[in-house]
């Protein structure tokens, strides 16, 4: 049952530049959360630093505004310590693929059940427009003294190579389809990544709304496009990854958006822990009692000897 969209907004003034792509992204987030009727107390938005980092203060669910590049590790600790929480990461392109690229890759390897929403505008907005890791080389956006000398990362290809089991792209000005992709990412069991193209009205005078308007198209409207792996057998997954990878190379006159790849058959990290520790989901770290009612340790003298007996030697008379 859907909830009221307004209930997902906080009273905090949204201080992005007028016309910022982030408004479209948060609109889609509010709607997606409302349609999914997410319980605000069981949902956590974890954000990094930069313009996108402020997102957690604008959404009326638990918000953890973490450190530059570190939103994924924060989110990992939260999710693994209490797997019943719905965890959504918001980061910028510099945040997730620059300073935080190692964590971005590691999340793919782990396939923790969370969604990563990347605000991709090609620039470091809050520090006045330096080139971000997704800005193509040779481009000279407004603040740059010289054209960008570094090559761009392809976020979709990197997510595929890292092992994300849901890889998609959205466009901030197309709120309805973006909302659908966000919902699918949250519903997906495993690490989900959405690269959201967004204009930066202040510092990116190349990849503007006008630039994207004529180029962006939707994959789901392409006849025969099917990004999902149906079975867990050999071959299909590799085919779908290749298809997604080829699609990720498309950029220029036509820019694809929508779901590139989805594989629900890979075990999540939580499943893997569960296999090793059968009590994990029922009694995760965040919920375990660690003391007796009287404040004593849960592990008493006798239990201690049973748990760590291999380090205890019964002495014998010489």
């Amino acid at each position, binding site marked *: 049952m859907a909830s009221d969209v307004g209930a997902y907004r906080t009273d905090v003034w949204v201080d992005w530049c007028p016309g910022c792509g982030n408004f479209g992204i948060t609109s889609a987030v509010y709607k997606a959360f409302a349609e999914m009727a997410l319980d*605000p*107390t069981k949902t956590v938005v974890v954000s990094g630093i930069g313009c996108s980092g402020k997102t957690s203060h604008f959404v009326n669910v638990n918000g953890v505004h973490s450190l530059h590049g570190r939103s994924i590790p924060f989110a990992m*600790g939260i999710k693994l310590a*209490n797997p019943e929480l719905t965890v959504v990461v918001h980061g910028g392109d510099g945040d997730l693929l620059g300073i935080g690229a190692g964590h971005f890759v590691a999340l793919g390897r782990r396939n923790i059940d969370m969604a990563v929403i990347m605000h991709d505008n090609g620039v470091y907005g809050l520090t006045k427009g330096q080139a971000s890791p997704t800005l193509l080389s040779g481009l000279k956006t407004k603040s740059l003294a010289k054209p960008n000398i570094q090559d761009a990362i392809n976020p979709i290809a990197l997510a595929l190579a890292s092992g994300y089991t849901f890889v998609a792209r959205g466009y901030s000005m197309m709120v309805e389809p973006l909302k659908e992709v966000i919902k699918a990412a949250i519903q997906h069991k495993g690490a989900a990544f959405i690269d959201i193209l967004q204009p930066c009205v202040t510092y990116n005078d190349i990849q503007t709304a006008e630039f994207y308007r004529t180029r962006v198209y939707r994959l789901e409207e392409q006849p025969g496009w099917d990004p999902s792996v149906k079975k867990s057998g050999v071959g299909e997954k590799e085919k779908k990854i290749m298809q997604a990878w080829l699609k990720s190379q498309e950029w220029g006159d036509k820019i694809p958006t929508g779901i590139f790849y989805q594989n629900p058959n890979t075990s999540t990290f939580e499943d893997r822990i569960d296999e090793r520790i059968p009590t994990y989901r029922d009694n995760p770290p965040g919920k*375990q009692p660690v003391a007796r009612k009287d404040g004593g340790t*849960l592990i008493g*003298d006798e239990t201690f000897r049973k748990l760590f007996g291999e380090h205890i030697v019964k002495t*014998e008379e010489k």
Partner: protein
Amino acid sequence: MARRELDLLLGGAQGAGLDTSANVLTTAFARLGYGITSDREYFSNIKGRHSYVHARISTTEIPQALTYPVQVVGAMDAETIFTHHGNLEDGGYLIFDKSTSDRRPSSISSIEPDLMRRLENTFAELKIDGTIASLVEFLGEVRKVKLVELSYPDILAEVTKKFKLRAAYASRYISSILVGAVAGLVNLDGKSVRYGLERRFAGRPEVIEQNSFVADYVSDAVKGKYGSPHELGRSQLGCDELMVASGNDVVAMAKIVGGMRYQSYYPITPAADESFFLESSERLEVNGESLGSVIVIQTEDEIAAINSVIGAALTGARSATATSGPGFSLMVEGLGWAGINEVPLVVTYYQRGGPSTGQPTRGTQSDLLFALSASHGEFPKIVLSSGDHSEAFYDAIEAFNLAEKYQTPVIHLLDKFLANSIATLHVPKLSALKIERGKIAYNPPRDYKRFDLNDTISPRAFLGSKVVTWYTGDEHDEAGHVNEDPLNRVKMYDKRMKKLEIADREIPPEKRAVYFGPEDADFLAIGWGFVKGVVLDALKELSNQGLKGAYLHLKMFSPFPSDYVRSVIERFDPERVIIVEHDYLAQAGMVLTLNTGIVIEKAITKYTGRPMYTRELIAAIRRVINGEKRVVLSYGE
């Protein structure tokens, strides 16, 4: 006459089985109720470089310190003899392989050039040709060392033949040659040795059988030829059980007892073994019943380690990481986030030689100032340290209590010496322990605010509880939203900093600095961490020689027990107050000055990466009491 003590050194190449020898002997000695402490010295290397275990075994107490010279050196290889012949007392016993008698240092590529040069000088001075044969001849004739000459190849051939083993596997049994030889010299019975082997090779009966054969065979041969000159008497410890563990093991056990349920880490020496231990204990099951579990995550780097710990702590899990200097260097930004957001977490920090990669496998105490000032900005931080295995156990539990009571990061500062020291200790007593979780909002009101200014320490509601909460690394308002108002800034700043004042009032000073020795002592040594044992051992010796000393053991550096420490020091002649620590600057002395205004004039330091030994410390204490300001120690290989 049976002896009360034995100082022993066993050496061999990394990966050659030295750990097995030490482990089996330690368990066997513990079986007889003896106290043992040991130091494990090794290079940053997996196979081939020289490593050794230096141990003291006592029938009357759990030894506090190590000293040289030792009475027995057990050499797996020629390099051990070249490296340690000077560590053996005159008339001591050298166990070695006579088939190595034609080896020279120049034929051993693992010997570092510095030692090679020192050896060349020694050989020139002694007028010997530098072979093992010439060196042991000198040791035997001039220094009256008893040469326990064994033919390792012959012994290995024996076991290979008896059990029809492949010759290529023979070297696996060298560890038991040393075990057997030591057992013979101290008259350690075959049953205890076998117990040690059963512990080491649990579930592999044939391996136990074969090694037991080797140990007994060698033990009998040694006893037959030399008797048991170092026979140890009955244990006087009066306990029916002993724990045998490394510092890493002890801390891991304590964390489990203390309720830690989430640890993430990145592999680093000498901290990683703690996480290994935790991972192998992740299911806390007793008699098929689950008491919970510990989630241990190996992250992509230390940055992820500490930040995921913060995330887990926000959900209410007692959470920690374990690292060493290079890893902690990467963690400091996360530490500040935890500080401004009042997140309880524990960093177990095993110091190793720095800066940079420094001496990755050697010990130090040079990170005290770094730990105290880690991360930019000001926030309360609790920094405590432990002097031995037992202290480390109880402190590791207390660290979580302090973190949760004062809602702030706690750094538990340890070192490589403790981490890798395998020792016996009394099994900890848990019945008196308390888990103190501080203020928690289990039923938070609807208008709950995480940083409620009505209280200096405001109740924590966990992520996933009945309310929505916000956190930010920015300065924030009571709800956790970004706020740059100057007056709010002062209130929030004060709220955080005042927690340290509360901690300072609440934590008893005598738990933060512990005084050992008579009230009317002639001099005062001040130290912290692993120097505790060696200082106490030196004081005992000096007291026997008529010089009465006391030791002030600093345990908590933030909040620092300023008044108490000042009151102790003021009782002494400033010329007779000495700081003892493993670094160059004598950092604990600087912290003491900062907090008390008292400048400590005398220092004994060591920064070779090797521990301090009782004998060199005694000599140094005498020197500073006789007027020297600073003595730098350097004994040990």
